[in-house]
């Protein structure tokens, strides 16, 4: 039985974007302050779970039609690729590279290949969390 949940659905529409933005902020903040790929991924998955609670699994799957197994696999591939790229340069595995660039709006910005590794972690965490919740949720 589905009661009138207009309040939760309206609130969700606003809150999901805030959570997603916060997830991305936490993800990028990881190098200098608490945060990183793992918590960022969990927060993003939390936003998706909130959507599933407010609406239902079929609706959310229709809005975001992705296979989360592939998301997790892509994340693993990105992380492994970042770490293994050092093999091509003849330095030990997992050696990271970094550089500073001047971007028009942001000014002096540091680029570090660890961010790419973290992006992989982010995707794996989102993928795995969503696989677990979807599988249990769809189980009759």
């Amino acid at each position, binding site marked *: 039985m589905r009661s009138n949940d207009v309040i939760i659905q309206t609130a969700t529409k606003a809150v999901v974007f805030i959570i997603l933005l916060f997830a991305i902020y936490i993800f990028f903040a990881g190098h200098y302050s608490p945060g990183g790929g793992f918590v960022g991924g969990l927060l993003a998955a939390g936003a998706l779970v909130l959507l599933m609670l407010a609406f239902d699994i079929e609706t959310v799957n229709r809005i975001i039609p992705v296979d989360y197994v592939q998301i997790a696999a892509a994340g693993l591939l990105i992380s492994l690729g970042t770490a293994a790229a050092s093999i091509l340069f003849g330095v*030990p595995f997992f*050696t990271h590279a970094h550089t500073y660039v001047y971007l028009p709006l942001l000014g002096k910005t540091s680029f570090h290949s660890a961010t790419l590794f973290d992006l992989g972690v982010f995707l794996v965490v989102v993928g795995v969390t969503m696989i677990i919740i979807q599988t249990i949720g769809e189980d009759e």
Partner: protein
Amino acid sequence: MINLPLIPLLIPMLFAVILLFFPKRIILQRAVATGALALTVLASFWLIYEVYTGGILAVTLGSWPAPFGITLVSDLFSALLVSTSSIITLFVVLYSFESIRKEREKFYYYPGVLFLLTGVNGAFTTGDIFNLFVFVEVLLMASYLLIVLGGEKAQLRESIKYILVNVISSALFVSAVAYLYSVTGTLSMADLAVKIPQIEAVGILTVIAVLFLVVFGFKGAIFPLYFWLPGSYHAPPMPVLALFGALLTKVGVYAIIRTYTLFFTMNTGYTHELLSIVALLTIAAGCIGALAYFDVKKIIVYNIIIAVGVILFGAAQLTEAGIDGAIFYLIHDMMIKAALFFLVGIVAILFGTSDLRKMGGLMKTRPALGWFYLIAAFGLAGIPPLSGFPGKLLIVQGGFEDLKLWGSLFVLASSLLVLMSVIRIFLYAFWGDPVETVKIKEPVFRRMFYPAAGMVILTIVLGAGAEWFMPLISGAGEVLLNPSFYIDAVLKE
């Protein structure tokens, strides 16, 4: 190539990730998995060659200096084990084509096998005690998948026990590492080997050494801690069982040998004495189990426990003969267990049961299978031209040199019981009056039989060509007996 020690664990991991993208395309899954494992085997041979000609290879990840980063170390011991486990996994995958069901193949069976190999090869290669924990978890997670995949009732029941035992032992592993870290302040194995002899509080270190024996004893199934193994290994299908029987307990055995030769040598009078007593009790427990059952799987499973005891009895001696024997026997045992599980699996499929009393007369219809089984059984017992002989000979010799006379006699006596337990399968299944067998197509039989026969032939090569392999084995033993080689290779400059 500086990253060579990593290649045998990166290849299976990379291809396992690629396989996640297309789980339903079985033919492609089989082809990619086989190709990946063939590449891994080649890479591991290259690794052996480089380590044999150029000495121990060590790479510290992320270009950090040695005790601060995670070091991966390939000495001959770990390179040999990496090659052996890669070869066995290749044969397991070939054997799986016919003996694992399609619905399992569609549900990430091959990625699971490749991730398991990643964990096993990583555990054999790592030079960092916490990284060892992580790789053990990688292989355990993959084994949880493989043990429950298929969802039969027995699998569900046994996987709960298996996971429970392993979660508890992993928690113990973390506490043991925490104690060790709080005493020494380091996690790198080479650095531990430097720090531990400088610490005067031998008492606490002995406690930690025994705690590690308990932890790795859970993984490797030594005497009081083997109780989970017979039930858990009875549940999964045969290729998974062959993979577990050949690789998983051996990781625990490897970890005991590594820690007890590299850094827990401060109080050998207590720790190594304890290890040899436990090893002999393990042999006794295994022998009793191997003779007690009429179930082909159970008989071979209890033989795993016997072999763990024999290897650890050799490793506990800290003599050249004992250590060399333990290494040879370890490699022999991984291969022969895989071969026996393959053959017994075919027998169980042919009769449609694993109960010996319902079998008989297979020698008339499948003579090749019978002869290969007989060779494998003799190899397991250690009859001279075959692979079980040189290892056990060296272990017994080491026991006599080390004044462990009764222990050596005990190991010799256990060989008779091992022979009796496996010959019983031969007598019941292959001799006697023929019993109605399940009809299976000839090509299906051949595709299961050829990997099994190939594995037996490899063990024959290992036994008959023991002279060729001895330089590798004694090179591996030399590093274990002289931790300074290991320390110098890791903490160079």
